[in-house]
């Protein structure tokens, strides 16, 4: 069973629908016992970091996530779930979970493309990912594959060793990060068509081992 962490951060329905389509049993829950007894965890999120962290703490989910991470349960962070696993965020100056060392930054403004066109914020739409490391969860993903992004902040791990893939949007930012049994992506695999579904499927058979 895959536990989709429910902390009122929205967009849970899409993750659930995608897993159902793939025939993968899942439950959307904030029940601590259910999460800890699940085989793996998806940690989604849309919204603001400050509120998300407050909601997680209120429900006791920050500690559960930490425990799950420490015992080696495979965890997939999505969007905001790829940000608040770091130490802190510029958004609401939030102190975050610190599962991976680093911080979350706001895109610089103004932001310009290589052709010197003004880029909008949020970064919204389909973009590609340059995979700089191999990872079982990304098996079968091709350089031309694109994924759906919608965000104004991006994760910056303290070390490059945590960076698995990057994306260009005026700057090159880490769009897939990972450490041990935790992998997290800034884009929405559940809204990224076939390659996104492939990532979710891969995650569901991943044993949680990752050698940097």
């Amino acid at each position, binding site marked *: 069973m895959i536990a989709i962490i429910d902390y009122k951060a929205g967009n849970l329905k899409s993750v659930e629908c995608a897993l159902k389509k793939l025939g993968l049993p899942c439950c959307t829950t904030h029940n601590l016992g259910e999460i800890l007894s699940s085989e793996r965890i998806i940690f989604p999120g849309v919204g603001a970091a400050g509120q998300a962290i407050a909601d997680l703490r209120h429900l006791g989910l920050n500690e559960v996530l930490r425990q799950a991470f420490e015992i080696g349960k495979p965890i997939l962070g999505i969007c905001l779930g790829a940000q608040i696993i770091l130490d802190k965020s510029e958004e609401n100056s939030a102190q975050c979970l610190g599962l991976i060392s680093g911080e979350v930054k706001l895109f610089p*403004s103004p932001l310009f493309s290589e052709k010197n066109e*003004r880029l*909008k914020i*949020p970064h*919204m*739409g389909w973009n590609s990912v340059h995979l700089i490391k191999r990872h079982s969860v990304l098996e079968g993903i091709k350089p031309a594959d694109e994924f759906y992004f919608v965000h104004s902040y991006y994760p910056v791990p303290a070390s490059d060793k945590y960076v698995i893939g990057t994306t260009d*949007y005026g700057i090159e930012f880490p769009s897939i990060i990972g450490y041990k049994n935790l992998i997290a992506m800034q884009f929405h695999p559940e*809204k990224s068509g076939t390659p996104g579904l492939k990532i979710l499927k891969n995650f569901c058979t991943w044993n949680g081992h990752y050698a940097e």
Partner: protein
Amino acid sequence: MLSKRIIPCLDVRNGKTTKGIKFKENVDIGDPVEMARFYYEEGADEIVFYDITASSERRDIMIDVVRRVAEEIFIPFSVGGGIRTIEDMRAVLLGGAEKVSVNTAAVKDPEIISAGAGAFGSQCIVLGMDVKKVELSEKTPSGYEIVIHGGRTYTGIDALAWAKKGEDLGAGEICLNSIDADGTKQGYEIALTSLISGNVNIPVIASGGAGNINHMHDVLKYSKADAALIASIVHYGTYTIKQIKDELHSRGIKVRNTW
């Protein structure tokens, strides 16, 4: 680099898709869930549903469509039409839509934008703008005015000022529909799209007037639009999404390749 998005728009009435020409004489042409899946599989980047149901049961019918669509397509989709309250927004988003779009309700009460952005995040809130070209005046210095009721009612609001206000209130995107161009198949209104998109820092979807791929190329190349909305040209089979994307790609527009 970000791709330009190609977005089919499905008008839905009583749970069925229609395509109106200038908002008149709508004809039912299919099941929204089936059409959405078809476009998803063809490579659409996003889908817009616009609920034009007049009856009071509109919400339940549309929410059912939203739920079924969410089970079938794995790209973002938005729902507009008849969204008047935060509760309307919540129902659509909980149903599985990525975004909701507000148009008339925002004109009547702009605070719905900030309330929606506060409750669900800016990325969920699309400001739909129906715009007509008008004489330059003190009230409409941009030469474009916001209209509602499918273009029948002028609001006295300047389109550019409204776009900026929408952004300030927390809209995450603008869907900009030229009522003058809508249904004409004579091309998007590039001057309007360029004016709005060049003066806000949120994405703008150009809407109204697509008759061929050249029109799409022009609006994406020359107007700073982030996405192009299409309807008839795909609904009636003039082009497939793949044909559109192949052609745009060969003419130097960055689009998402899905095959």
